[in-house]
């Protein structure tokens, strides 16, 4: 019943992958959803897309790896979850596909209809996925109708109860704020001001929704009393969100962004504590609940995968951090206003300093 060391380790690793995913893709969901709100002309929108352009694809790998890790470490969880949440997952996939190609295709034509079509794909895909991930995770923690052979018997609308919908609004609002805070850090001029204003206005709403959801979660446990272990990260999530709201009001972008990231992380850590040691509770009968132990792979597989993770995770984190460092320059509409191109930057580079530490945004000319 109680997971052993390796099973617990892999549960922690999968939670870490999801937390990483929501912190990183969280802001690029936010940027995507706010593309048409903050960006008012071609140059501004281009600047906004460029802030996440080099990194969104890498961010998305976190969830792909979380999926693969779940398959390898807890095949029973992967099987019940993915087949049980079939249509919900289909919707998420459609959102992710739409936004994924939209970044790539948006700049391929100057036709205003083409541009606005792909902008909507970015907005709806990003916002939709941000909402649906929250709905899905709230459903997992709350439990779903499931039979003795761990087949989920819920229909799509069974997953859309008020608690789950609140979970969706929480992730959507948190990611919107996170995206706005990110843009306040990564842009210049009007874009920064607009992002800041938006973050300041949305932040209180996100905080209230988050606290409401955390309180509901604490008392939503069908299988026992309030879990103290989950309340510590929940309290930290609420405090971070309040701090982020205050920091936004004081125009302290870095603190607001960092506190927002902590709030997102602590929200999911608290949900992970609520869920443990279950993988997917059944609301049909407590006896039908899927436990981590019941869903787990054998210890040999977990050992092999642990070695791979111990070697690879630091390497991945190192080059991901390096990428964020390389692309740390702020971008603004003026960088994309002219007909300047990356080639201009390249030419400058070749003609001048080859050391590669020029921090001007590429096309500034």
């Amino acid at each position, binding site marked *: 019943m109680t997971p052993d060391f390796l099973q617990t380790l892999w549960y922690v690793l999968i939670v870490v992958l999801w937390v990483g995913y929501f912190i990183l893709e969280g802001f690029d969901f936010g940027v995507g959803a706010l593309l048409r709100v903050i960006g008012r002309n071609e140059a501004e929108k281009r600047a906004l897309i460029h802030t996440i352009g080099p990194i969104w694809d890498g961010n998305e790998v976190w969830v792909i790896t979380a999926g693969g890790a779940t*398959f390898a470490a807890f095949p029973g969880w992967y099987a019940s979850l993915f*087949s049980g949440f079939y249509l919900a997952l289909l919707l998420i996939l459609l959102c992710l596909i739409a936004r994924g190609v939209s970044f790539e295709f948006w700049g391929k034509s100057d036709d205003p209809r083409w541009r606005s079509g792909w902008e909507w794909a970015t907005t709806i895909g990003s916002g939709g996925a941000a909402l649906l991930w929250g709905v899905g995770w709230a459903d997992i923690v709350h439990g779903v109708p499931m039979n003795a052979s761990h087949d989920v018997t819920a229909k799509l609308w069974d997953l859309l109860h008020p608690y789950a919908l609140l979970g969706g609004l929480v992730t959507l609002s948190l990611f919107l704020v996170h995206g706005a805070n990110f843009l306040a850090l990564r842009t210049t001029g009007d874009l920064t001001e607009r992002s800041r204003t938006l973050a300041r206005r949305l932040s209180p709403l996100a905080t209230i929704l988050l606290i409401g959801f955390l309180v509901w979660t604490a008392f939503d446990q069908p299988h026992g009393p309030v879990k103290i272990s989950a309340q510590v990260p929940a309290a930290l999530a609420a405090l971070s969100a309040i701090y982020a709201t205050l920091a936004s009001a004081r125009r302290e972008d870095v603190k607001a962004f960092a506190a927002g990231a902590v709030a997102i992380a602590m929200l999911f850590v608290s949900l992970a504590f609520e869920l443990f040691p279950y993988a997917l509770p059944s609301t049909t009968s407590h006896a039908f609940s899927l436990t981590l132990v019941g869903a787990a792979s054998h210890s040999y597989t977990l050992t092999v995968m642990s070695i791979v993770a111990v070697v690879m995770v630091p390497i991945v984190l190192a*080059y991901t951090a390096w990428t964020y460092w390389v692309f740390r320059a702020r971008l603004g509409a003026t960088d994309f206003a002219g007909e300047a191109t990356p080639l201009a930057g*390249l030419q400058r580079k070749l003609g001048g300093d080859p050391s590669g530490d020029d921090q001007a945004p590429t096309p500034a000319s």
Partner: protein
Amino acid sequence: MNALDFARLQFGITTIFHFLFVPMTIGLTSWVALCETRWYRTRDEVYLRMTRYWGRFMLISVAIGVVTGLVQEFQFGMNWSVYSRYVGDIFGSPLAMEGLIAFFLESTFIGVWIFGWGRISPKLHLLAAWLTAIGTVLSAFFILVANSWMQHPVGYKIDPKTHHAYLTDIFAVLFNPTAWLAFPHVIFGAFATAGLLVLAISAWQLFRKRHTDLFARSARLALPLALVAVILTGIFGDGQGRLLESEQPMKMAAAEALYNTTNGACLSLFATASFTRHPKRLTSDLCIPNLESLIATLNPNGTLKGINQVNAAEQKKYGPGDYVPIVGVTYWTFRLMIGAGVLMFLLTLVGVLRMRKPGWLENIPRWFYVASLVGAFLPIIANWTGWIFTEMGRQPWVVYGLLKTSQASSTDVSLASIVISIAAYVLLYGFLIVVGARLFIREIKHGPGDSGGPGEPQTGADELLLAY
């Protein structure tokens, strides 16, 4: 059709679509990295323009390949939950490794490559190109390890309590001989795919006398590489065929539509029969005497096992049932794959021999131009039919000898859900293929831009390089 048939149909449609872009991506990332290496070494501006121009096709291909790959990763759990529970202990590991080792690498460094021009040193930029290419190749390795385990399960035991397979030896799985033949076969096939795509686009431009310097050089570089890739694809494919004789004799017998064990079997070139599992007789058969035995056993009178005999042996081993795949599918996909390969070989061989004459590529003859355009579609046919053959030829098994496809699909997913998702994928993928094809054609027509090198003033259109 029931839910199982639709689940299979969905896997087929989404995988075929995904695998249109996968070989293109694997081949083009290496090709772009090669062009950039040449530029880095020589500082010849033509190579830089090549890097940028071919990079555009790479990025379109990557974009669609990445997003359709998401569906692949989730589909096992969505439609094949029984399969996932049964094999997850083993099959999940290479998938997780693919994420940790390959996907992070390729998606991080493709971002660096796209946006790094002028921001990082040319050396680092070149490194980003190669790390992306290596990422795509590693990803192919891990997914082929996973697939090879379905073809030829190794390094596992069956749990007596759950009756699920579990991993006992990761090295047996990673060094599965099936994987080590499939991997180079697929990789060189991908290189051939990119090589012939580059050749076709170059021929189109050369025939119109556009940017002759850039495209003659592209074709001159791509042709011998494609020739070597095609030859190596064939050599490893031949090895796979030999291995199948012992690992999956049914698949090879079905590839040849050889119903009864034969000494000195002839190589069938063309045969028709009613399209069922057990057609009564071949209605026509064009056959070269003894050649099949010679190819398969290196002996013109060698013995080849027939479908009926293998079926009887499998019934004895696995219990009553029908272990014969749809022979019409295996026979014809096998022939289309090899036929396309032979044509690719001839096309690239002729090209390599002729291009030695100075000015031949620059004044490309019409017949070679037309042949090159057709040539771009040959690898696609070979890639598709190859996978259809290898997957349909394994039926009725999903994991050979262990789990039947009919017992592997999700038990909790309704027919309606699967039909809705197929409709959604078909619509979305159909839309993507139209957009992708139009973008390809646009890039071909637009060409590398008249304002070529870094020394010349740029026009707005050249921003396409950035892709965003």
